[in-house]
């Protein structure tokens, strides 16, 4: 399946509950992770996601680039995107 389609299919609620209808797996994510998933569902690219996080959160010296890369690798590890997916 197309990675973006799989991401769009994820069911999210405002509390950070994530349901993957493809596998039936459920997850918890924090507000930052939830926002990234929503950006991905909207088709945002790397720079748009980084800018969006800067705009929506009080970021103080955190390494957003590293955090985003790590989050994407978590999505790959959990099978929410394919192994070749990258931003």
């Amino acid at each position, binding site marked *: 399946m197309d990675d973006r389609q799989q991401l769009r299919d994820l069911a999210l609620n405002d509390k950070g509950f994530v349901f993957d209808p493809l596998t039936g797996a459920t997850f918890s994510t924090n507000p930052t992770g939830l926002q990234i998933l929503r950006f991905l569902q909207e088709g945002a690219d790397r720079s748009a996601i980084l800018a969006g996080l800067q705009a929506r959160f009080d970021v103080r010296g955190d390494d957003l680039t590293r*955090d985003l890369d790590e989050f994407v690798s978590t999505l790959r590890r959990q099978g929410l995107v394919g192994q070749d997916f990258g931003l």
Partner: protein
Amino acid sequence: MNDLLPAYERPVLVRHARGAMNKFSRAASMQPATELDGVPYDRLLEAYGSPLFAFSERTLVQTYRQLEDAFATRWPRVRIAWSYKTNYLDGICRLLHQQGAWAEVVSGFEYDKAVRNGVPESRIHFNGPAKSEADLDKAFRGDAIVHLDHFDELALAERVARRLGVRPGVALRLNLATDGVPAWTRFGFNLESGEALSAVRRLIAGDVLQLVGLHCHIGTFIPEVGPYQQAARKLALFANLLRADHGITVDFLDLGGGFASHNTLKAQYLPGTEASPTFARYAEAIVDGLEALDVDPLERPTLVLETGRALVDDAGHLVTTVVANKRLPDGRRALVLDAGVNSLFTAFWYKHDVVPTAPVHGIPEPTILYGPLCMNIDCMRDTLQFPPMSPGEHLVFHHVGAYNVTQWMQFITYRPAVCLVGQDGQHALLRRRETLDDVAGCEELPAWIG
């Protein structure tokens, strides 16, 4: 920076694992520990640096009183001999001696430390399998109570006593079988094989040492009381035999130590806070075993306890700082801490209770805690559910008061400072952080190296 926006947290995504709860369905809780007896950990770190061992005087004293009360309400004469090897920091030892504890030492070094701490030598129980002639000479001159471990030591003790012209009181250390606890047969004279009785006969024949006590120590961190009941009964029956057949009435029976603290062994299912027996349960079991003594209740021997771990473990805490976050290939998060197994030796045995020192937000995820050593063995805590932590934030390991500040090693990093929090909120160093001069001070440079 915009205070009107929600705080940024590192993004996490944690898969729900069904059926992973234990049979009691207890939710994992992670309550921060922000202070020790009213003193914020942050303040202690500001004063003494990180990492830092911090001891609670209140917990230490309360635990001592609980132990003493548990036994003294069940047996007429009880003596607690503080096990120096468990923690021989002078401040800790002196606090316990102020409560009335004698000293139990297992080397000449510990003996000297006890004397330096003001313990009268006649209040020192001297154990251990490798006492030197000089050790025995010192102990007999000081009227300490030597616990004999093997026949060679018995013969050496006789030679020393004859040379000094004294008839010292000694005890025999026995090893014996109990259900469920592997016998520590390497220490003392075996009871079941008849070796212990042979030692008594040998001692009587030598006619220079006086047998005043019997001692056993069935093991360490024993979370069952049954073996203590059996050990106490066996000591009591042996004491009956000595009196009936040899006319020897011992002054004391020493049940050693080994009571479990509130720590949790790596192989243990229930947490130690729930699984470890209370002092009262240990006392019930031991006194029940001692009821086999065939003596007038008013002439019962003194019950000696060498409790170490269960007295001091819960009073000690190790505060450490997060150096880095890592993501392992298997998805687990790893934290690198500034304290390692060179300081927290007991991390090899226990699933230590560890929590942040400040309220934390975010989703806990499987996390492994590593120390700062460039050694693969340096794992402070195997995988546990832990909230997000950032570099510079602090964690505290609980129940670390026993054995760590004696078995720690200077390896790769300096050994950390140790402080004491007093009962009225004051705090002070028990041991300062090591320096290069401390470590290199013992070294010598051969002249040809220059």
